[in-house]
């Protein structure tokens, strides 16, 4: 019997992860800061044709692309003359488990089955758990989902409690935990004890599963409008959604499509705080994940994260919780679609962005998600009020994460805030360099950092020197 103490299990992490992912990550390392990302994606992930086949087997993908005509009309009323792009939404709630996460789960579960694993384990409090449980049920594998659910008072986030129920409904064992990053310890322990597959959100399997979302958008927009999408807005948290969607769009030749990442602004709330945990209404799609995963992607549960959002985002915008609740209501009453709310983060941004685009242009919101008890504006706002959060109509500028949710008074108050990508890149470089001496950087490291930040090599070298000088 091996030592199951926290320190002992964390120390065995590399060995546990290697067995549970069946990926030889070392083969892609270059010995320095960088690794060969594209080679990892091409050698580990499946081909697009194969992914289509895998997803077809379990009813994943091929979701409808809907034109939001009433919301477009509203945006045009607010926009200047000639402005107001056509807004389309990819109704990902039509996937088997009710979200685009079925795409990510489908390839992982297929791969696990092919390689003889008896079950899959995922550490997730979100839609991914239900997606893994659903796909595992279809392919006859066991599933275990490790969730962060409660604060120390035993009070659970309504949205996460619904995910617990959904995972159990699909036949998963759900391990519910209180707040804290030591969830990873339990996750490793379960992987070690069961020998199951690590259905991580961050393997090449998970990311390649999303590429079909990008290719479908390209095909459906072309069929509906005769053009390629001008902009695609992606709700951003761990970076997989941005990465996979953008890679799919690139594969479909949408080289000029702008990829806009959108997160709910939760600045100031600490993700590992027992107190802050229940002071937020959004458990994903927020800056609490969006920023750290953009600036330090390898913080994931695998040695190298296949989600590299900074490589793909052309723009990163934030909106507030109250604006997303408002737009969730808008989607239900104007378009007859009860979805989200977390998935409507990108729709909220798109509503504001469309007003600055031409009428002949097309902006696509690349996901919806199912709604249900707990996972709906009314239980979430009921919960917020019970936890002492002020909820009122007003100007969203008065929003304070963890203190006040401001529901706009009118649609003209919905606005995006741009995050300066240069600062994000700077943080990325600072994190990537860690405490190493830059004199050890080799040309391939600079090349890697340039690809990661989409900067010229000379510009990376200059920024790296500045960081070193500033230490």
């Amino acid at each position: 019997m091996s030592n199951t103490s926290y320190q002992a299990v964390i120390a065995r992490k590399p060995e546990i992860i290697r067995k549970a992912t069946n990926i030889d990550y070392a083969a892609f390392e270059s010995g320095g800061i960088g690794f060969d990302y594209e080679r990892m994606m091409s050698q580990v992930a499946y081909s697009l044709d194969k992914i289509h086949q895998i997803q077809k087997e379990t009813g994943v993908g091929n979701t409808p692309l809907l034109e939001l005509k009433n919301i477009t009309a509203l945006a045009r009323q607010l926009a200047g003359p000639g402005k107001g792009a056509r807004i389309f939404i990819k109704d990902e709630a039509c996937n088997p488990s009710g979200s685009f996460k079925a795409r990510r789960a489908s390839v992982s579960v297929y791969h696990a089955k092919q390689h003889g694993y008896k079950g899959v384990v995922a550490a997730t409090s979100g839609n991914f758990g239900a997606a893994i449980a659903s796909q595992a049920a279809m392919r006859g594998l066991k599933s275990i989902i490790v969730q962060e659910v409660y604060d120390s008072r035993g009070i659970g986030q309504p949205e996460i409690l619904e995910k617990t129920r959904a995972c159990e409904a699909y036949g998963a064992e759900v391990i519910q935990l209180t707040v804290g990053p030591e969830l990873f310890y339990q996750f490793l322990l379960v992987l070690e004890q069961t020998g199951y597959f690590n259905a991580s959100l961050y393997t090449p399997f998970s990311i390649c599963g999303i590429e079909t979302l990008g290719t479908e958008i390209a095909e459906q927009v072309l069929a509906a409008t005769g053009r390629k999408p001008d902009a695609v807005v992606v709700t951003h948290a761990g970076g997989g959604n941005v990465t996979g969607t953008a890679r799919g769009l690139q594969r479909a030749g949408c080289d000029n499509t702008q990829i806009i990442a959108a997160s709910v602004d939760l600045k100031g709330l600490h993700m590992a705080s027992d107190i802050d945990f229940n002071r937020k209404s959004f458990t994903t799609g927020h800056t609490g994940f969006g920023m750290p995963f953009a600036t330090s992607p390898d913080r994931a549960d695998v040695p190298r994260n296949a989600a590299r959002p900074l490589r793909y985002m052309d723009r990163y915008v934030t909106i507030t919780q109250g604006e997303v609740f408002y737009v969730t209501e808008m989607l239900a009453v104007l378009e007859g679609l009860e979805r989200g709310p977390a998935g409507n983060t990108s729709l909220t941004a798109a509503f504001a962005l469309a007003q600055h685009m031409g009428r002949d242009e097309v902006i696509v919101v690349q996901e919806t998600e199912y709604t249900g008890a707990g996972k709906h504006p009314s239980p979430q706002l009921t919960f917020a009020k019970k936890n002492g959060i002020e909820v009122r109509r007003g100007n969203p500028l008065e929003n304070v994460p963890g203190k006040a949710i401001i529901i706009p008074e009118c649609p003209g108050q919905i606005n995006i805030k741009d995050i300066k990508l240069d600062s994000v890149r700077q943080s990325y470089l600072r994190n990537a360099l860690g405490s190493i001496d830059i004199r050890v950087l080799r040309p391939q490291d600079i090349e890697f950092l340039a690809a990661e930040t989409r900067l010229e090599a000379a510009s990376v070298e200059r920024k790296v020197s500045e960081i070193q000088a500033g230490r």
Partner: protein
Amino acid sequence: MSQAQKGDWVQIYQIILPAGKRAPQVPAETASVPLEMWVKGFLEEEQAQVGTDVTICSLAGRLLRGRLIAKNPHYEVNYGFPQPELLTIGAELKAILEGNIDE
């Protein structure tokens, strides 16, 4: 309800890491409380009292030990209260669309 029988759907509880033994990177408010765990499954013992240590068979078929805390635990989620802050948004937006209000 304080007694469960073999095969009942129950919930068990365990403290994984006590307060003070948390990971070094957690903030103070988290470090000062334990890391707790709940799992559900079917009771293995013929009979057990709530509050005693039991074994369950989880939905993944694993045998897990912990303190019995509930028999047939209820789902805690619902739709809460209708929100006055949201209820009027539909009518407001339709009025704008119909041109009755200048935005």
